[in-house]
């Protein structure tokens, strides 16, 4: 699709051909409890289009061997397809160089890589790491482990009742001991889109590097790591219509080169003797062992698929879905939306008066509707909002307006059962 076509779609999201897109996703034809599946748990993991499934089959049936190891035909094909996938991911996030794109097993693995590779080398006793209340446990726990090991300190940017970061407080945290910032781009629990470009500029003016957890941003919007000017950007393939077990760490080359390896083993070395091992160049220094080759190639096909629809068109359509759902829920007595930030992605957490989220989840499932209920791996937010858990509907570009109506009808059914 050309830029122009994408621009046209932004102007009129109704022109977005969701039925044609839905036809690409075989799983959407499933019935659950004798009702058509309404899959609204995309923030946990998204579904895979036939194009990606076919790519996995083609790789596995005609191209598979181990990479970077042998001179035979299949190994060369597999290596070149794997590296081609890296280039696709490079372009997807507009990284300057392909060696800045490291394959990991997911966002969690990517953040742990930065903690071990950068944090353990450059963060010491008394140093401070800035995180936010909104973070997913995967961008909290690794830093707590580091803080405990090194005697470093974690400072947590608070949020307001809408679920927006208090940027004044963020800025006040900076001092000469501030060594690192970890912040999520989009909140998985509340949908808040954080002003990370401004936050990064503020940190860089004080020479502090910033890691962005982009797990929930990459599925919903165009991400340009050069424009954001982030130092690290982590995301997962399975939330992006790709396979599980694969993810990306983008890192600025100059930082990656200064970092120590995370895992040791094959492929990450240039030479090994028992006296001294020479590490490979980036990105290979961080890719020890045989990677999930098929998954990487599948993720390459997934970002091709998304780019063809256009991330801007996807963002515009999803906003229309979110607006529709938000308006309908706001009109329902006894239902409250948690997370009312001005800038939000298509993630909708809600509470129904007098009904526990688990009961909502079970009863919606009975209607064929898949939502997530629980703390969404973000217990600090739940504590801040004084709720034990929420129900969350998270949309993808293949969800239809009819599915928004199904959700609303499902919530009404829940209310009826509980009155």
């Amino acid at each position, binding site marked *: 699709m050309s830029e122009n076509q994408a621009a046209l779609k932004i102007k009129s999201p109704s022109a977005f051909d969701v039925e044609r897109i839905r036809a690409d996703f075989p799983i959407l034809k499933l019935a659950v*409890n004798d009702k058509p599946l309404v899959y609204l748990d995309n923030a946990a993991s998204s579904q895979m289009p036939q194009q990606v499934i076919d790519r996995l089959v083609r790789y596995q049936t005609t191209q598979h061997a181990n990479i970077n190891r042998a001179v035979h035909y299949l190994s060369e094909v597999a290596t070149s397809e794997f590296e081609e996938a890296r280039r696709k991911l490079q372009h997807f996030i507009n990284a300057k160089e392909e060696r800045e794109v490291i394959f990991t097993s997911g966002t969690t693995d990517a953040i742990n890589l930065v903690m071990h590779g950068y944090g353990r080398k450059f963060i010491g006793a008394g140093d401070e790491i800035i995180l936010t209340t909104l973070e997913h446990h995967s961008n909290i726990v690794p830093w707590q482990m580091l803080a405990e090991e090194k005697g470093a300190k974690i400072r947590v940017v608070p949020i307001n009742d809408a679920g927006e970061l208090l940027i004044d407080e963020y800025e006040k945290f900076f001092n000469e001991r501030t060594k690192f910032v970890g912040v999520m781009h989009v909140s998985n629990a509340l949908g808040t889109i954080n002003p990370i470009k401004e936050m990064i500029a503020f940190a860089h003016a004080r020479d502090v590097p910033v890691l962005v957890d982009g797990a929930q941003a990459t599925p919903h919007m165009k991400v340009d790591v050069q424009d954001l000017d982030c130092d690290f950007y982590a995301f997962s393939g399975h939330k992006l219509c790709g396979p599980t077990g694969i993810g990306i760490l983008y890192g600025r080359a100059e930082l990656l080169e200064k970092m120590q390896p995370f895992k040791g083993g094959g492929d990450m070395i240039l030479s090994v003797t028992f006296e001294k091992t020479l590490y490979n160049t980036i990105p290979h220094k961080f890719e020890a062992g045989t990677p999930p080759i098929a998954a990487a190639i599948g993720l390459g096909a997934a970002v091709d698929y998304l780019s063809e629809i256009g991330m801007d068109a996807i963002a515009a359509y999803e906003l229309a879905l979110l607006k529709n759902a938000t308006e309908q829920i706001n009109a329902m007595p006894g239902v409250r939306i948690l997370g009312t930030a001005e800038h939000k992605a298509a993630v909708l957490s809600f509470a129904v008066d007098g*009904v*526990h*989220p*688990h*009961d909502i989840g*079970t*009863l919606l*499932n*009975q209607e064929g509707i898949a939502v997530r*209920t*629980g*703390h969404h791996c973000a*217990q600090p937010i*739940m504590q801040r909002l004084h709720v*034990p*858990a929420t129900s969350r509907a998270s949309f993808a570009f293949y969800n239809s307006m009819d599915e928004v109506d199904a959700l609303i009808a499902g919530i009404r059914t829940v209310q009826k*059962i*509980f009155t």
Partner: protein
Amino acid sequence: MTNYKSLYQEVILDHNKKPRNYGAIDHPSHHAVGHNPLCGDHISVDVDLGDERINNIAFQGESCAICKASASMMTTAVKGKTRAEAETLIQEFLAMATGKLSHDACPNIGRLAVFAGVSDLPTRVKCAILPWHTLSGAFNAVETTSTEAEEDPMHAPIGDA
């Protein structure tokens, strides 16, 4: 497959709305708090166990309808029973909720058979058994129990769930 709707039957909804024996006992002989770390739910159970029988029992906490109704019905079922009778009932309830025994194979289960449907909902089994688990903890002087705790005497049946 059981119709899930059957789990949210009138009797369960009623106990959720108007839980019986809700609250605390002043000087309980036995007490425990049960947590379900997967959802953050927790309930506490107080027991006044006399020489012969359970004189009084109460529960309170934050939980879903399945858990609250299960706790409420548990208190009405065991009040006035001996500890041994209550322990038999705990075993029957756990076996039924985890799908190991059908409800007709549980001679003492009575009205608690309304919970048989949870065995089809693996993610909800823990909600139904948390109160029973906590009562067992109270009897055995385990002050905090958890559906995930390794050292917990009840861990094995739950792990299988």
